[in-house]
């Protein structure tokens, strides 16, 4: 599977590493070259520098024949926008984005996006830990 991961922060880099180890073709995309330090030394995928909201960069990353697009930058709206570009302009079959703000759940459902809110997930995990 060819996967593009936009945002090479802790989560992005770790996901890139995991998918790479599983034998997938991974491209990690970030606008800050310093973030690529998080990729492991033996990372076999591609690290591409650029803004993922730019169509040319997305094409360079191979979005036209990507099977999946994951967007995990720090900006919720940036994630929403990038996910929509991938889904509605490049018709990538599987698009997942991170949205910190659980209040926006309505929004991404409305826009037909598959989104994960780490805030909600983590709060629930903590509750389970505490309540046993």
């Amino acid at each position: 599977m060819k996967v593009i991961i936009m945002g090479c922060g802790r989560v992005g880099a770790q996901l890139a590493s995991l998918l790479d180890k599983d034998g997938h073709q991974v491209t990690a995309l970030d606008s800050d070259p310093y973030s690529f330090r998080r990729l492991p030394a033996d990372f076999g995928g591609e690290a591409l520098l650029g803004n993922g909201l730019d169509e040319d960069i997305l094409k360079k990353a191979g979005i036209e024949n990507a099977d999946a697009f994951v967007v995990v930058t720090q900006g919720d709206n940036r994630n929403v926008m990038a996910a929509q570009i991938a889904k509605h302009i490049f018709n990538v079959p599987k698009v997942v984005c991170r949205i910190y703000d659980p209040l926006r759940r309505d929004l991404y459902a409305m826009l037909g996006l598959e989104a994960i809110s780490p805030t909600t997930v983590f709060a629930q995990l903590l509750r389970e830990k505490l309540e046993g």
Partner: protein
Amino acid sequence: MYIMIVGGGRLGYHLTQALLDEGHEILLVEKDPTICDTINSQLGSICLRGDGCEAATLEQAGTSRADMLIAVTGDDEDNLVACQVAKHKFKVPRTIARVRNPRNEYIFKKLGVDVTVSSTTIILEQIEHEVPSHALTHLLAIEDRGVEIVEIRIPDDASTVGKEIKELPLPAEARLLLTIRQDEKPFVPKAETTLAAKDQIIAAVPLEAEETFRAAMLGS
């Protein structure tokens, strides 16, 4: 009309002021509390502090009865999301987004924003207008009709100087609307009008015929 504006920067502030002067009901949504206070003290209590991309804020602002939402923050992605929430959740009939990266215009339209205004493109065109090497300037695009209004300036060395307009291989749908000539009152050019150097011609041209039009007018 009830108009909502998202983003209280310089553009949002002046837009609010202009629309208030025209007698519209305006609500400005701005995240920064200091900016909110300043606007409220200067323009009256019209600024709501909050995130214009959040459904909860827009709900509180009565977005569902808004006739129009205009998103003019400095971030393209925020403007997109504010318009999308207004459009899809609150069924606002018309959404307008400021776009800083001109390449986003196409994406915004495709994702459902009704009107995009690219501040960068406008500034570029204004500057191009002042650069003598640019003979053609875009004045106005009427995109849903596929037509644009352009201005063309005839350089001194153009091979069309001294020719009548009917001699020029103009695209069929192009219409010359006005000739502005030094020391003369502006006039509507006719088929027999002879082009002079430094003439400024305002024309309506189909978007796809711009290049043919330019070549016909400049003789290149």
